Every structure is written in C-alpha cells, then in structure tokens.
C-alpha cells in the first residue's frame, strides 16, 4: 500500500456534519441505559463490592490482614498504587503533551483519557491511604498548625508523593472541567429535561461560546497544558523517588525516574486502548475514534515498551558495571531467584509482545491490539510487583529473608480497585460526553475557514 505521509488522514471520518457529531456524542446521555449497560455495571459493581468488603475487614482488624510483613513491608499496597498512578499518566499525556505537539488526532480520545486519569488517580490514592491503617487520619499527611508545633517531614519522598499526587489530581480535574464547560453549554441548549437543564446550567457557568471568551479559553488551555506536561513527568518521577531515594539494592538507581515515566505512559496507553475499544463499539463512535487513533496509540505503546525493555537491560548492565556485589545479587536474583516467574511474565508481556506492533496489520486489528493491551497491563502490574518485592525479600540480613505471598484480602482489594475504576468509567459514559464535542467539531472537515489555509 502506498501512503502519502505528507497528507494527514482526516481526524473525523465519514464526513460527519457538526450537528451529527454532537448528536452522536450526546446520544448516550439522552437515551435510557440498556441491558448491556446494566450487565457491565453489574460486573464492575460486584468487583467493587468485593473490594469494599475486604477494605472493611482490613479496617476492622488492621492491615495485619494483608500479606506484607518483614522483610517485605511494602506489598500490594505500593504495587497497586504505582500501577494505578501509571495508568493515569496516559490521560495527561494525550490531553496535554499531544496538545502542545499540535497532534489533532488527540481530540477524539482526550476527554476519555483525562477521565481515566482522574479515576485511576482515585484508585491509586486508596492504597497508600489504606496502608496507613487509619485512613480517617489522612489529614496528618498535610502540613497544618498543631499543638505539638510539629511539621511534616518535607524532605521525605513519601510526603513529596502526597503533594505530587494531590496536585496531579487537582490539576487533572480542573483541566478536565475546563474542557467540559463548552460541552456543558451545548448540552444545556440541547436538553429538554428541566432538571438536566438546571444541572448543565450550573456547570456551564453561563458559557456563551463567545469568541471573546474563546480567546482567553484557548490561552488558558495552552497554559494548563504547559503546566500539566512537566507535572505528569514529575509525578511518576516522585513516585520512583519512593524507591530510588532509599538505599535498597535494586531501587537505588538514577534510571528510575525516566524508567518509571516510560512505564507509566506504556501502561496508561494500554489501558486507554483496552477501554476505548469497548466504548467505541458500544456507543457507535467508530467515526470519531478511528482505527487511525488506535494505530497511533499502538505506536506509542511499542515505543514506550522498548524504552522499558531498554531499562531492564540497563539494570543488568549497571549492576555489572558498578561492581557492587549487592546490586549484582539483587538483579540476578530477580531474574533467576524465587520470583523468576514474575520477572519473566513481566519481560514477555512488556518487551516481547508489543513487538508485534511493528506489523501494520496488527496495529490496526482490534482483537490483536486488545490482547496485547491486556497483556501489557498484566506485564506492567508485574513490573511493579517485581521491583517492590524482589528487592525486599532478600535484604541485607540473610536471617530475615522471606517469601511474600498476598492474602485473599490483598487480592480482593486489587479486584475492588478495578471494580471502582470500571464503575466510574461506566457511569462516566452515561453522564458526560465521552468525546469533547467542541474540540472534535473544530477539527471536522470544513470546520475552519478555507482561506485561512492548512493545518495549524
């Protein structure tokens, strides 16, 4: 097949008119939920319920119900935290970094990816808070004047985490809301229901699609994108500091920040692909979320997958090059020790399978990409597991070596976090426009003045 790469494929396919785009996106909000919806929410709700029960038991008896104990003091709590924060990163990448890079194709998927960011960060936040044992005292994590005259330790990576994750959540939420304002205004004008009109009016703030507003709005969007970009990089960098600032062999390496960021984008894109495949099918958004979108996302998955693979190789190299016997022991133990099974699941899922995306046919085949995306998610979960558990289970003191096995409650809470995530995603698809109406209209064919020329 001959492709002229100078001509970009149209972002919106099927020559949809502006009103047709709006019609398509707004349809799920205006129709009653069907059977498919209830089945989906039934499944995710069940998973969520399992999680809630396990959390309740954990709160009642304490986190002794979990599998982490000496020497593996950081078990599923931290593994799942890093996993979910990573999932969130794709959303900000798509909405902010691709915006700065003027990638128009982002418009179709940005809203959804941003929503996933917010839900993923909610899931992530649960784990460290639960791991404290007394989540209702979480306010102690923030600096507040108290009768002890004591402040939190601002030099601790765990406090950096608190600031990074809460800033990330707030900024993502604001960014998301800013994008939603024009859509709320459009929905306000569309809806026939009185109650909905009031709700949309409140959230649209009285938006009038005025060009005097668009002027500042576009500027604000640019500024926010400009801040969200370093922010998203900083968040996973700081998450990696949780490990890298310690002196555990296998953690204390400078490659961790970039390695974690690449891994986060990798897993995040895989999750976006997984979920969008279903959303696109169920809500007939094939013209707005096209195969070209998936093609591009799969390329990102492959690229970041190779970065992660490079990091795995580099860990071996540095262990040898540093001449540090502890580092060497840990790295070799990772690949051939008691957790070799987890290590090799990680390597096959993250490095080997994404290589299939070199072939264009696979990049554009829904079943293949679904399989690979799920495998990547599994692989990335195991990556965090391998990093956390292998370094800890063989620490400096051989007398305290042990083997970490999660308990049922660990697994139940992990299942519950997936339940929470998908419940939120499913509710989102029925309550808010999953695609940015105004942004997609702006990139539809014939939406911009003709004499104004070309792409910019």
């Amino acid at each position, binding site marked *: 097949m001959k492709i002229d790469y100078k001509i970009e494929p149209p972002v919106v396919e099927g020559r949809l008119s502006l009103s047709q785009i709006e019609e398509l996106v707004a349809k799920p909000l205006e129709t009653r939920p069907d059977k498919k919806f209830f089945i989906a929410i039934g499944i995710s709700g069940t998973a969520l319920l399992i999680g809630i029960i396990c959390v309740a038991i954990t709160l009642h008896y304490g986190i002794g119900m979990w599998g982490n104990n000496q020497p593996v003091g950081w078990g599923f709590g931290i593994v799942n935290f890093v996993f979910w924060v990573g999932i969130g990163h794709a959303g900000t990448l798509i909405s902010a970094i691709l915006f700065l890079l003027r990638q128009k194709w982002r418009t179709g998927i940005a809203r959804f990816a941003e929503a996933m960011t917010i839900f993923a960060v909610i899931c992530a936040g649960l784990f460290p808070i639960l791991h404290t044992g007394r989540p209702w005292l979480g306010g102690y994590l923030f600096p507040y004047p108290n009768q002890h005259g004591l402040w939190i330790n601002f030099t601790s990576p765990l406090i950096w985490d608190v600031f990074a994750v809460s800033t990330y959540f707030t900024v993502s939420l604001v960014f998301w809301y800013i994008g939603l304002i024009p859509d709320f205004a459009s929905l306000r*004008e569309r809806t026939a229901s009185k109650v909905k009109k009031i709700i949309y009016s409140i959230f649209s*703030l009285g938006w009038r699609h005025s*060009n005097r507003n668009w002027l500042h709005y576009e500027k604000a969007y640019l500024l926010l994108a400009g801040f969200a970009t370093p922010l998203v990089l900083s968040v996973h960098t700081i998450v990696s500091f949780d490990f890298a600032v310690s002196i555990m062999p296998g953690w204390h390496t400078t490659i961790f920040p970039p390695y974690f960021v690449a891994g986060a984008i990798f897993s995040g894109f895989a999750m976006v692909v997984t979920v969008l495949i279903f959303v696109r099918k169920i809500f007939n958004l094939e013209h707005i979320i096209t195969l070209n979108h998936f093609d591009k996302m799969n390329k990102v998955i492959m690229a970041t997958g190779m970065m992660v693979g490079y990091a795995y190789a580099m860990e071996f190299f540095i262990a040898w090059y540093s001449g540090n016997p502890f580092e060497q022991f840990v790295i070799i133990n990772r690949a051939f020790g008691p957790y070799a099974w987890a290590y090799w699941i990680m390597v096959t899922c993250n490095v080997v399978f994404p290589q299939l995306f070199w072939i264009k046919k696979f990049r554009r085949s829904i079943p293949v990409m679904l399989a690979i995306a799920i495998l990547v998610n599994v692989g990335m979960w195991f990556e965090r597991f391998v990093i956390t558990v292998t370094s800890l289970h063989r620490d400096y003191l051989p007398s305290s070596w042990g083997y970490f096995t999660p308990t049922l409650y660990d697994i139940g809470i992990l299942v519950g976090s997936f339940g929470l995530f998908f419940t939120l995603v499913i509710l989102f698809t029925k309550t808010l426009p999953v695609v940015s109406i105004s942004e997609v209209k702006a990139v539809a064919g014939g939406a911009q003045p*003709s*004499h104004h020329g070309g792409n910019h």
Partner: protein
Amino acid sequence: MNRTDKIFGIAALFDTPDAIINAAEKVTAAGYKKIDVNTPYPVHGMNKAMKLKPSKLGFITLFFGLSGAAFAMLFMFWAMSLEYPMIIGGKPFFSLPAFIPITFEVTVLLATLSTVIGMLTFFFNYPNNNHPLNGTAYIKAVAVDKFGICIEASDNKFDKDVIEQLLHHLGANEIETIYYPKDEVYPIFQPKYLMFLAATAIATSLVTYFVLNKLMFMDPFNWMMVQDKLIPQEKSEVFEDGFGMRKPVEGTVARGFIPYPFMGEPTPADVLSNPFLPTRENIELGKKKYLIYCSPCHGNYAEGDSRLRGQFPNPPTLHSVRSREMSDGMLYHIITNGQNIMPSYASQVTREERWAIVNYIRVLQRAKFARESDLQEIKKESAANVE
C-alpha cells in the same frame, strides 16, 4: 414574555466559518466596538478579524506561579530550619534539593488554579446564566453548528435599522433582536426558605455532634484504645496456667548474674581467686564502694568503729590476724554470702565491685601495718613531689 423591552443588541446567524470571518471583519471595519462573535468552537483567524488583543491571562499565571514557588520554599525553610529544626537522614536543615519537588508541585498547583479561577471570574464574570444572550434561539443555534455575531446596544454607533441592513448585506440568514431579561427577585423571608435554613442548621449540628462525639469513638475509629495485647499482670487465654506474664525457662541466666557456687556455705573449702590486679582505677572503685557499703559498720579504715551507735552489733576489726590472713577469695565470699549476722551484699554490689573492695581492704591493711621499706618509699615520693 420573560423580558423587558430594553434592547441588549442585535444578533445574526451565518452558516459557514468563512461567512462569519467575513462578517466579523466587515463589522469591525465599520467601526463597531461592542461586538461579540459566538461560534461552537474557536474559529481560526477570528481574533485577527475582530482585532482582539492577545490574552493577558498569562500574567496571572506568572504572578501566582512565582508566589507559589516563593511561598513553598520559604515555608519549608521556616518549618524545617527555624521552627522545628531536626536532622533527618543526615540532610542539612536547609536541604535545597529535597525541597525542590514540593516547591515545584505547589508552583504548578497555584499557577493552574489561579489561571482557571482568574479566567472564569475576573475575565469572564462567570457564573452568569442571566446574561441577555442566554436562553435565546441565537445561542441555541451557535451551540450546535451556526456562527453568530452580536452587536450590542451600548455601542456608540448603535442604530437598529442600519445594523440590520449591514447584516443582511453580509448574508446573515437570521437576525434576532435581543432584549434584557427581567430581573429575578429572590425573596429571603419566605417561610419555606426559613424552614430550609433551620432544617439545614439542625441537621449540620446533629451530624457534627455525632461525628465528633460518637463516631470517632466507635470501631474502628477507636484511637487505639482497644488493643489486642497483654499488659503486665493480665490474664491470658493462650497459656494453660492463665498467666499473661511468663517465667523464664529453667536454668536461664540473666546477663551479669552468673551464679555463685558457694552460696550458703559458711566456710567453703575452695574459693575463687581475685581476677583483678590492684590498679589505681580498681582501687579507686573499691574505695568508693567500700565507703558506701561497708564503712557504716566497719568504719572508714576498717577498724570496726561503727557509726551505727549500737543499733547493730559492732563488727570486728578487719586488721586482725584472722582477716589479714584470709585469702582474697574468702573476703569475696564473705561479701557475697555474708557471715553470721553480716548480711550478703551480692544484690547491691556487682562482682567487679566486690573484687575491687577486696583490693581496697588489702590497701587498708597494708597501710595499718606498713613496713620500713614502705615508709621509705612514701618519703621518697613525697620528697619528689615537693621539688
């Protein structure tokens, strides 16, 4: 109708982005200032057509971003270096690298929030659902796929007929006159509203009372007042005898308490020998301990001159032949075991101290029965000291 007769402006709808750009250019060129264009999405080139100046929003971002950075850094400096200085992980009180992550996050947080809030309130005057344009057919159309322009009545050049003609000429397919809406009034002293306020107040107080005084002391929020652990003297279900406190295993030797094999024997056949040399430090220690533990009965120079004034039978002098000829081990045995009415000092005086006391008693005895050679030695020493 829910509107006044006061005209807000005249609005016209166009079908294509090209037409609206053209219209905006022409209307601006005609000298109208109070105009606005409403489009479903930002149309490229519109800002130029309307001759709008670039947005100044960035200044808000800059100002608050910088203040966020300064505030975070200064606050951490104050809290970690001045208010409650503490060395953590060997870092200095002001450890700049460790402060950077939080400075960055606070900068981003303040910059973005101020940008958004500043834009919505300061630049847009939102929330404003009461704007004359809201709720008109015009806004309904531009929210979907039409492109509109509105010339406001507050413009100096406003003339309804002239403007309508101009817009027609530009190819507008619908022209609408927009009126100001009636002011909405919200009567405050309605019984319904007052009831609502009262109900909210009662509900809030009840919930607050419940949360602070009841909920916070229920399981699991019990502030660790109930703990699954044993405190001393508590009963335990785990052990057969029901005692929570456990006895050490048979034959356990506590640190520093090696058992003494001749306990209870008045005159053991065989005794230990002194493991300590009579060094200066050892004798100093022995003197200190002797004066504390032995001198009340035996006297400061072991002459048997008790300070107890008959409250306890006077011990014999330790300068007797019997005492002088005792082995070190025997002296040690008497301190450890006691002798007749003299009690054991094993629990007060450690093993090392007992041997030191023995050495000190030897010093006292030697001083009392000094030989000629000893005296000469002392004379020599004191002569050397005088020089």
